[in-house]
């Protein structure tokens, strides 16, 4: 019954929709003619009006004549347009996709079958062509998936499509060389810095050692000639420090205080992971994926709206695109080959071989076990954008890292914070400043925060209590309570 009713509604609305377009078309035509009549009768009343109307009339005439020319335009078939509507989903001129590449297919078919009709028969009904021509049989075994049949495409249309394909020029993979050199320069710079200091330090020590050795040898030689016994290093130092006791004492106090200060500062750095950037099995460039290709963070980190963990994409998510995209240069190809190895994709045959191997990523944002943090609470309920805590990943060329607070403060619309990223100070500083979202809380509507927000804004007493600064922050809703995060 349910089914039946639906069907009726559907057909009715379908008909009315069709009728509506027809009516609209008629109305437009009438309007044009009507307008032209007026403009011709009033044409010479005054010059400025005439000019204006002439322009408008020309415009309308232009559209009218374009309409009139439409049928003749249809005779020249646009192969590119037909290709993109009918074929491009599976075929590419130069690359094997779901279907084989089409460049030169026309010539090959004509040569192998000796008939210009064969490929048209194939497009219209590939099963028939496969039975008729031996080459058709061969082609039908090329790919596992069966091709759609296109009985509606005329001979002229098929030829137009194939001519369009053959007229294409293969794009050359660009940027291959530059990408490689860029990467090399980056690593050199990174490693060059500490090693320079190490070498300089060693050189310095060698010089000091050599000079003191020479000095000592000279002294020993001098002592030998006078018959005195030379002092050892320790005795010499003792003698010198007794002589300059005051300076030595001041010096040791300074050194002692410095050590304590450095130690305390060191304690403050324990558990601070700002700038932490562990190595990853694949040098994943967020710039290309989130930046150039415009893929939303939530496509790959898709559990972010449902779970406490944002989630790393499983390999099948990578393969959603990388089944088609194998990389432009060697650097990219070698990285993408790791995905193929993990998913068991055989790039030659275009099938999954069945053997898989997990990719072991290194966790970047590590929170201690005694803290509870929930991504979905912040992203869905709080409506916080990913970049507010993770920085602008569309500009992150290297692998992911814990952004420093200086970098986060530069993100547009961020609350300015002072404490290092991922520390408790950072969390509560933001909770104290950040106003709660007033937007829709979840698909069920009318959530907890909205209700509290409404109460706060209507109840004067509560309002006074909470809103000394004229805003409702996370803290004022209990965002500073210990048990919110520690339990």
């Amino acid at each position, binding site marked *: 019954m349910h089914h039946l009713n639906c069907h009726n509604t559907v057909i009715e*609305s379908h008909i009315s929709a069709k009728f509506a377009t027809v009516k609209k078309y008629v109305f437009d035509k009438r309007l044009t003619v009507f307008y032209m009549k007026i403009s011709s009768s009033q044409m010479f009343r005054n010059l400025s009006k005439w000019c204006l109307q002439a322009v408008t009339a020309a415009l309308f005439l232009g559209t009218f004549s374009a309409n009139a020319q439409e049928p003749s335009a249809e005779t020249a078939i646009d192969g590119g347009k037909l290709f993109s509507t009918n074929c491009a989903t599976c075929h590419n001129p130069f690359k094997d996709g779901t279907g084989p590449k089409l460049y030169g297919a026309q010539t090959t078919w004509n040569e192998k079958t000796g008939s210009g009709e064969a490929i048209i028969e194939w497009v219209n009904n590939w099963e028939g062509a496969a039975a008729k021509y031996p080459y058709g049989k061969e082609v039908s075994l090329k790919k596992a998936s069966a091709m759609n049949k296109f009985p509606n495409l005329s001979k002229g249309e098929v030829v137009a499509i194939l001519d369009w394909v053959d007229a294409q020029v293969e794009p050359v993979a660009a940027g291959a060389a530059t990408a490689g050199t860029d990467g090399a320069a980056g690593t050199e710079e990174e490693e060059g810095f500490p090693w320079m200091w190490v070498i300089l330090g060693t050189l310095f020590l060698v010089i000091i050692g050599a000079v003191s050795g020479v000095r000592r040898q000279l002294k020993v030689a001098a002592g030998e000639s006078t018959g005195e016994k030379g002092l050892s290093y320790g005795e010499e130092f003792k003698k010198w420090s007794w002589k300059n006791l005051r300076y030595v004492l001041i010096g040791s106090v300074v050194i002692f205080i410095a050590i304590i200060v450095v130690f305390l500062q060191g304690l403050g750095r324990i558990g601070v992971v700002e700038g932490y950037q562990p190595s990853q099995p694949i040098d994943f460039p967020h710039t290309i994926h989130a930046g150039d290709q415009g893929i939303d963070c939530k496509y790959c980190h898709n559990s972010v709206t449902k779970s406490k963990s944002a989630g790393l994409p499983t390999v099948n998510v990578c393969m959603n695109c990388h089944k088609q995209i194998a990389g432009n240069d060697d650097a990219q190809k070698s990285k993408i080959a790791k995905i193929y190895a993990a998913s068991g994709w055989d790039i030659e045959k275009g099938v999954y071989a069945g053997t898989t191997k997990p990719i072991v990523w290194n966790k970047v944002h590590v929170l201690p076990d005694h803290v509870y943090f929930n991504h979905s609470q912040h992203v869905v309920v709080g409506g916080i954008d990913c970049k507010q805590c993770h920085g602008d990943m569309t500009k992150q060329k290297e692998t992911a890292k814990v952004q420093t607070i200086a970098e986060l403060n530069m993100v547009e619309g961020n609350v300015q914070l002072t404490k290092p990223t991922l520390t408790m100070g950072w969390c509560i500083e933001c909770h104290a400043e950040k106003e709660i979202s007033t937007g829709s809380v979840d698909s069920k509507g009318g959530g907890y925060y909205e209700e509290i927000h409404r109460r706060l804004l209507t109840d004067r007493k509560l309002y006074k209590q909470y809103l000394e600064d004229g805003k409702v922050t996370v803290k004022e809703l209990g965002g500073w309570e210990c048990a919110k995060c520690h339990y």
Partner: protein
Amino acid sequence: MKIRLVGGLMLTAISIVLFESCVSDKDSSGLEYMPDMYRSPAIEPYVDYGEIRGRENADLKMQQSALTPPHGAIPYYGTNVEDVKLMMPWSILPSADFKLTHGLTGFDFAKNGLNTYEVDALAWNWNPLMMDIEVVKTGETMDRKNLTLDNAKKLYASNCMHCHGEKGDGNGPMMKSGAFNGVPNYADKSALSDGQIFYSIYYGKGAMGSHASQLNKKEIWSLVHYVRQFQNPDYDKVAKESAILKKGEEKAIVKVTAMVASVVAPTEDNK
């Protein structure tokens, strides 16, 4: 003397190397105050359990960063009966063939004559997901919100838009950059049944992979509703007329079905 000098130099060199190796371990996140409180002995996502609380387990070390759920595990779908009904694997489990695909391909189960919910859905031309319409009365004005479509809009933006484009014309940023090609325009595909759209998202179609791991069935059905809007701008209207606020009510959430405006029986051409 010479030996002393050489020895001293060697000692310095060794200590520098040791110091370097301690400080510049890129994969170490640094010192922790209380490691036993930092690492959860219970399984947490993406944590290497090769070493926990000082105990090493060489078999686990750097083997996996994510674990697969236990065999036969079903996610928690909440307590709403309708949602659970929509989400549960229908009558039978996926067949042994599912192992071949790992859910990775647009593997056509229909060819193997297997009777599953998803395959059945291919032939459906109705969307089992009722749309949630929220009507709020403020004074004399009635605010109407289609919660399902609003939610689907967000899902579309994060899951589909980079290829299919904001307007569903198959001209998303990935097309514009030239990384991908051949994404169809939704407007050209109005002949597809609801079930076929569901099936394409669930199992993948052509160059598109399966999105079953990213979107649950409710989300897919809500996207089917959303995609219909590209084919018929008045798609939401059918639902609009059915949403009525009862007397005395200030706010109501009404569940309604929305129907496809143009339906053509699935042909060989658009399957």
